[in-house]
């Protein structure tokens, strides 16, 4: 087993007593990177110590665990968490430190990188090790997804990156024992408690998270009005999937923000993505082009969505969708 020093660190993000999916995805990638470098993978958790998902983290690729512990770390607050992670970094000098590009990771990682005075690359879609130098090659979309850029942080350590949820693939192995856990008891000074949480409100549960569905039936401006999404929902139900939408449909108020696929929404890679009345702006394509199979229905033959569709149907969604629903009902009856 490889050591904890100079390895690959993954920040363990926890919500409501569960490890976030993106953390598990990052562990899968970290294992690959660490394998190339010949170093170890460490999951770093900042908390009060009551939550101990060690076996789960181990099964997903963490050979080592660092728990930075203090009662003030029970809930995520920027300053205490930055201090906690800095403790872990200065003690074990990781080569690489990965974070989910979540509303927490995108708050925490920038501040930590500034404190460590090292580089941070946001929203990476590809991570590799450069041959010869061993540097981390961090690839991310730029200019609203119009271009890809590969970023290097050659002279500073750790090399820090955030990765959007749904981009990397989890890798689970059977484990029968528990990993070694290093506990660091952090001191959190009063000065770090300058932000106070008065209340936490969970938004009413909408539908299933679009990143978890294996089939997404997605609608855009070409759906014409909010009411037409009910048909997409029925079709999605018949296929065991859920609905998604383009930014245009969210901006029009037809669909809630949590349905939005794309650069300013979420990245999805379902087995099948059915795009209905979506022209396929580059920002939308950036969020779904990795889908297993893409079906597009659009009236406009020149719509860019047809450029990446495996099956493109030039036709009116208002005519195709009712027929599709009828046929699916017959097939699944």
């Amino acid at each position, binding site marked *: 087993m490889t050591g904890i020093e100079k390895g690959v660190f993954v920040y363990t993000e926890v919500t409501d007593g569960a490890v976030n999916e993106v953390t598990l995805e990052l562990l899968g990638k970290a294992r690959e990177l660490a394998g190339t470098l010949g170093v170890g993978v460490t999951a770093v958790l900042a908390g009060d110590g009551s939550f101990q998902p060690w076996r789960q983290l181990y099964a997903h690729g963490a050979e080592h665990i660092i728990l930075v512990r203090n009662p003030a770390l029970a809930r995520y607050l920027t300053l205490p968490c930055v201090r906690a992670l800095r403790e872990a970094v200065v003690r074990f000098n990781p080569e690489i430190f990965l974070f989910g590009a979540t509303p927490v990771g995108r708050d925490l990682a920038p501040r930590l990188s*500034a404190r460590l005075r090292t580089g941070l690359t946001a929203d990476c879609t590809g991570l590799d090790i450069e041959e010869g130098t061993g540097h981390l090659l961090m690839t991310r979309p730029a200019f609203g997804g119009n271009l890809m850029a590969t970023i290097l942080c050659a002279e500073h350590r750790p090399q820090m990156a955030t990765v959007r949820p749904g981009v990397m693939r989890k890798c689970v192995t059977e484990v029968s024992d528990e990993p070694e856990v290093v506990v660091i008891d952090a001191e959190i000074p009063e000065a770090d408690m300058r932000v106070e949480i008065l209340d*936490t409100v969970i938004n009413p549960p909408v539908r299933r998270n679009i990143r978890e569905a294996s089939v997404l039936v997605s609608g855009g401006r070409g759906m014409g009005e909010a009411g037409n999404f009910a048909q997409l929902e029925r079709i999605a139900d018949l296929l065991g999937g859920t609905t998604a939408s383009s930014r245009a449909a969210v901006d029009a108020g037809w669909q809630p923000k949590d349905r939005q696929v794309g650069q300013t929404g979420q990245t999805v890679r379902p*087995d099948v993505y059915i795009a209905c009345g979506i022209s396929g702006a580059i920002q939308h394509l950036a969020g779904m082009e990795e889908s297993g199979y893409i079906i597009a229905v659009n009236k406009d033959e020149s719509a860019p969505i047809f450029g*990446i569709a495996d099956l493109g149907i030039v036709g009116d969604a208002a005519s195709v969708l009712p027929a599709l629903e009828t046929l699916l009902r017959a097939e699944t009856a």
Partner: protein
Amino acid sequence: MKIVVCIKQVPDTTEIRLDPVNGTLIRDGVPSVMNPDDKAGLEQALRLKESAGAKVTVLSMGPPQAEVMMREALAMGADRAVLLSSRAFAGSDTLATSSALAAAIRKLEYDLIITGRQAIDGDTAQVGPQIAEHLDIPNISYAEQVTPEKGGLRVKRSFEDRYQIQRVRFPCLITALSDLARPRYMTPGGIFDAFRVRVVERWTDADIEADPTQLGLDGSPTRVKKSFPKSVKPAGVVTHAEGRAAAELIVGKLKERFIL
């Protein structure tokens, strides 16, 4: 209350097109705009000015052409505009950018700093929290709603599936979501004054007393190694079909993929 709002001039990325032949970015004719999250942050600052009384300074790091955006901010109601412009800032990554902006902010008085959550050309969301780190003040990212309180703010902080009500005392920094406040239009009188009467102050690296090793390329730990157009996957089958014929094509493919 003294508020500094950091704003950035960005290409309107929704207008950027790729050259279909060689896959390069067509930048010609792409309009420049005030970054949307920053503009919402400026609007929020102007509302605080109206409801609680404040002096609003806009600060930007960018080329001389960004002056147009600074005048737009003045026309919306900002009291002072400072544009940081120097060759010394060329090649800055987010860390070097935040170092320069933080050094400039130290020269200004502030209780509250507002930045946009992220810029549409970079999408990093890093500069705001990094400025707060350099100034050693607390930050609240992803602000969706802001209410002034005695000596501080109450902020609705957005997360993926929830929000928190957080309280912070001045001095502090918040990063604004574009939902924070819908920006107002410039008034005709405001435009006239902003372009004919008001001054955009030009500062260089010499004005901000920053450590030169933390600016520009020297102060940037990250480098762009290469940039390239996205690989385009081969197009599939495109057919004209309506109604049942189209539905049968789709169902056929779903069966092939074992979805049905």
